[in-house]
């Protein structure tokens, strides 16, 4: 490791590289490589603030009361209580294994798919106990987008129309489905890119497009709540930016709960933040409050990056 500027740079990167020559001769200069594409405009924090304040939170959609989730080997969620409103984005943050994904998956009773999972406490959707509903009805109203985009091995149209077809009594005709599919694709910001090719296989789309397709598929049946499990972790930065824009648009009609590892993303996207640690809900409040003035020490340590 030699000190001094690196001399063998490929010409096109040289213009972008930002060598910060250090004064210490033993430390090699840091070189940041910038992606040479147009960066997505991200709203500066101040604008975000005003927009958030201008919007009044809608009615309460989901209420979690003393939820406990245990698996055979560990307790994932310990007596968590939360409230989720329409028009708001709630971010669940915390280090790996803190239970945020388990909490999210309990909201649409997906934890039931894991053998040995047990649950205590209640989850109320619009005041109704979700345990008293049919799980298929619940999932029609509380939709989920997963970490890895998982479009079905069908055409784009069939993917978006999937839930619509399954949830209706009689087989709807394609003409009846078309406006709904188009609308969903528009709201997901994908329509312009695929309008010519709705019959193409969905798996041919790029990663970011696939995830937006999954979002379109999830919102097509007009759910009340949208759950997102680290939706951008498998995507490149451009697509991440696009999805975050989407979330801003979508929260008008939905309550959104997003689990994310990425603190910067939580800051950009969320209105409310819940910080979890080893199954406990440590702190819950608005984004500004959690990031700028956290009450608990652990929260402060986490958002400052002391551990992750």
């Amino acid at each position, binding site marked *: 490791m030699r000190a001094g500027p690196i001399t063998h740079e490929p010409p096109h990167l040289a213009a972008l590289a930002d060598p910060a020559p250090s004064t210490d001769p033993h430390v090699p200069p840091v070189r940041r490589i910038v992606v040479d594409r147009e960066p997505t405009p991200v709203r500066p924090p101040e604008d975000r603030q005003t927009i958030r304040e201008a919007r009044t939170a809608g009615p309460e959609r989901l209420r979690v009361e003393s939820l406990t989730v245990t698996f055979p080997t560990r307790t994932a969620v310990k007596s968590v209580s939360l409230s989720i409103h329409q028009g708001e984005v709630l971010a669940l943050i915390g280090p790996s294994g803190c239970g945020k994904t388990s909490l999210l998956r309990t909201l649409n009773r*997906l934890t039931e798919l894991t053998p040995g999972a047990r649950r205590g406490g209640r989850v109320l959707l619009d005041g109704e106990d979700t345990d008293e509903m049919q799980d298929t009805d619940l*999932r*029609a109203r509380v*939709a989920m987008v*997963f970490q890895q985009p*998982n479009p079905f*091995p*069908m055409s784009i149209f069939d993917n978006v129309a999937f839930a619509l077809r*399954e949830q209706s009594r009689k087989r709807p005709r394609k003409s009846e489905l078309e406006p709904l599919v188009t609308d969903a694709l528009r709201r997901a910001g994908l329509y312009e890119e695929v309008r010519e090719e709705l019959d193409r296989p969905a798996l041919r789309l790029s990663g970011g497009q696939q995830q937006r397709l999954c979002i379109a598929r*999830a919102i097509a049946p007009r759910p009340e709540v949208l759950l997102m499990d680290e939706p951008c972790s498998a995507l490149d930065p451009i697509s991440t930016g696009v999805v975050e824009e989407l979330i801003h648009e979508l929260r008008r009609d939905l309550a959104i709960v997003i689990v994310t590892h990425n603190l910067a993303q939580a800051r950009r996207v969320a209105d409310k933040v819940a910080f979890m640690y080893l199954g406990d809900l440590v702190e819950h409040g608005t984004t500004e409050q959690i990031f700028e003035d956290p009450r608990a020490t652990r929260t402060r340590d986490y958002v400052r990056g002391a551990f992750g």
Partner: protein
Amino acid sequence: MRRLAPDTRGLRSGVAGGLRRRRAPWSDRRAARALGGVSLLIALGIIAMIVFVVRGAWPMISHQGLSWLGSGGDVDRQLENMLGTSGNPPSSAYYFRAWPLIYGTLLTTGFAVLLGLPLAILSSIFIVEFAPPSLRRVTIPVVRLLAAIPSVVYGLIGVLVLVPYVGNHLITAAERTWMQNRVELTGAGLAPAAVILTVMITPIMVALICEALITVPRAWREGAIALGLNPLRATLAVTLRAARPAIAAAVVLATARALGEAVMLSMVSGSRSFTPSLADGRTFLFEPLRTVAAAIIESAEGVGAPALYAAIYSLALLLLFSALALSVAGYLVKLPLRKYQVRA
């Protein structure tokens, strides 16, 4: 044990000399060539097989062209007549019209696949979706067992259990008298043959389809459940759909197996080259038939007679050709379905 020879050359003996005296290890190129040669041997073997079968069938083709695939006359009698030929028989001795055999093969294979495929798909769904763990532990060895039973055992049970049952309990005396001018109804015929053939090919399809259902990424099924489908519908709408290439492959494999089945069918199908016809109503199921493979194995004794030899080999050529065609069909059938999958 090597004796170290007394050394007179100083350092060049002893251990260093011993190492040099060891056999030089095979070089990679030699090994690659040797192993490649073995592989070539196998490929050549297959080509030899095709060549030999065509050569054996050649007299029939040269004397009868392709008309031996058509119908005309009683195949059993034709084969019997050929038994007596020797030396260089005239063209007339080669008279052969094998359509009843082909028809019998198509009938049995068709029935077996049509009955077996739904059975296999439903059983696979049962194993993967519904079976409680205790039953699953039983069903999987059961499928393996059914696939491993030799065809001669199936044939034995068929001829000693099923055929008498059909003959004594399912065929009425009236039917027997009605058919007696055309053929004798003994119970051996289409029904027992088709049933046993179904049982024989279903395990093959179940194994392939189960494996495909398990290999389909679970993320798809989970996504379907998250959209509000119940687990069965999720499996049907997504996983089964994604397994379509595997189902096609299973059908091809099962058809190939059914086409080539000789032993069981020769024991159970009646060995009379009669063409069962639907016009006979219910009796259609009980009429005897003969398949190509069964005819080969039954005529094998007389293979010294040149005309019979040529006839047998032409039938074998037909089977070989169908097997090859099925392999190609299997490959082609998977192609358009691959469009929608990540892999097939």
